């Protein structure tokens, strides 16, 4: 796959360029919009939930920001990715190119806005009373895993979207529910021990928890936590690749 990617590097670059241009054409802020959206969500959550949870949660702004950061990247990458195959059906039914390029191109876009938001998070951290440490470098693990996880979920969704357009609406509902289950604006310690274990089944919660643990508590999660994340990534990516491989020459019947 890597070798093939190198072979199609030029096409990939052109696709990334195209996606950028078509997304931000005739917008004043351009990529600024991708930054504004998580920041506004952060602001609203802060205003609304400070009263409820803010007083008992230390570093509540950072706590929220970690959640919003991961959440925003996940939804942007997967929702954009879902349409990537369909939107490029005019290309892949005419020219034989690897179909995952379209998805990866969309993911680059989401990744860039994620990284920019991450920089803003660190600025927030600098203004907070937290002191960054070398442990922050362990964040590379959840970031790389999240990138792969988003690609995997994007592959699954974009394949499903080709077969059933309902995927879009179902996923819309699914993400809305998932948002409330991911402990973005509340803390899980108000739940029973048992209930807290269930949160570990949610990959998004794992990623968010990892960020919070490192940034706020200055502690790297244990090995079990790393393994849980790795399993989620492997499942998503494996399923996605399998669907693409299996349906590689079937997609064109459905578009």
């Amino acid at each position, binding site marked *: 796959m890597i070798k093939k990617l190198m072979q199609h590097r030029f096409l990939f670059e052109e696709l990334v360029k195209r996606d950028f*241009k078509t997304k931000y*054409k005739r917008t004043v802020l351009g990529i600024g919009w991708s930054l504004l959206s998580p920041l506004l969500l952060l602001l609203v959550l802060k205003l609304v939930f400070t009263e409820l949870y803010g007083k008992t949660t230390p570093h509540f702004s950072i706590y929220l920001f970690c959640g919003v950061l991961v959440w925003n990247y996940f939804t942007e990458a997967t929702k954009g990715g879902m349409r990537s195959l369909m939107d490029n059906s005019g290309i892949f*039914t005419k020219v034989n190119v690897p179909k995952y390029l379209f998805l990866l191109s969309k993911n680059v876009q989401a990744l860039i806005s994620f990284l920019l938001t991450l920089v803003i998070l660190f600025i927030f951290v600098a203004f907070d009373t937290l002191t960054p440490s070398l442990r922050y470098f362990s964040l590379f693990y959840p970031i790389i895993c999240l990138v792969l996880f988003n690609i995997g979920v994007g592959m699954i969704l974009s394949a499903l979207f080709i077969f059933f357009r309902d995927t879009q609406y179902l996923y819309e509902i699914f993400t809305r529910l998932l948002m409330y289950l991911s402990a973005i604006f509340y803390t899980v310690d108000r739940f029973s021990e048992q209930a807290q274990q269930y949160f570990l089944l949610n990959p998004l919660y794992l990623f968010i928890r990892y960020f919070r643990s490192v940034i706020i508590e200055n502690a790297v999660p244990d090995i079990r936590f790393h393994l849980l994340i790795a399993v989620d990534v492997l499942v998503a990516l494996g399923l996605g690749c399998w669907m693409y491989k299996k349906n590689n*020459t079937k997609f064109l*019947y*459905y578009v």
Partner: protein
Amino acid sequence: MILEVKNVSIRYKTGDFKDIGLKEYLMRKATHNYHVKSFWADKDVSFSLEKGDMLGIIGRNGAGKSTLLKAVTGIMEPTKGKVTRKGSVAALLELASGFDKELTVKENTYLRGAMLGYTRKFMDETYDKIIDFAELKDFQDRPFKQLSSGMKSRLAFSIASLVQPDILILDEVLSVGDGAFRKKSEAKMREIIDGGATTILVTHSVNQVRAMCNKVLWLEKGEQVEYGGDVQGICDRYQAFLDSMDTGKR
């Protein structure tokens, strides 16, 4: 031998699965009203091309020409039989589509070049030639949607003909553009053939095939009617077949 298509049959699926939602799908499955038709778009088609060959594929609408080309390029997999390629294939199926209407002419040219598998360096070198040939120098930075359909086809043809793949597939290209451009494009095609490229030309125009090809494949409803190097003979019989269809209608 640079391309061999051996006993290729392709089963094409069509039917209710397109554009239906999940509810509709489940309903139809439950009421046994879910129909997927499949038919043989191509049945036992064989041909082979040597370097420098120009194959014309003729046949009426629905003869299986486009489906066959999709198998040649690898977009589709043959249900039976085998396609062997030795070299790069640049396919331009339904030329004017696949451009992005929001991008400029220049951006589209690069994107198309990239799709055809060329490097950035190659595109940097040939870009000016492409634009000159397409006579679109004044339109380089215009959004693609502002171009007339003739201009779009001219650009598509220029990109296709100025790049040098081992196997070039041209689907209905030469039927586009005004008279002057058509002359120019035919001259260009000659140049490509003389340069030793292997080309497959799909067209409705028998005259083009007579003028340019050294091999002909005649398809009718997916069946291979005739194939061979007797271009004039096959074209004569195809023309006679078309005429008989016409008189049959009247």
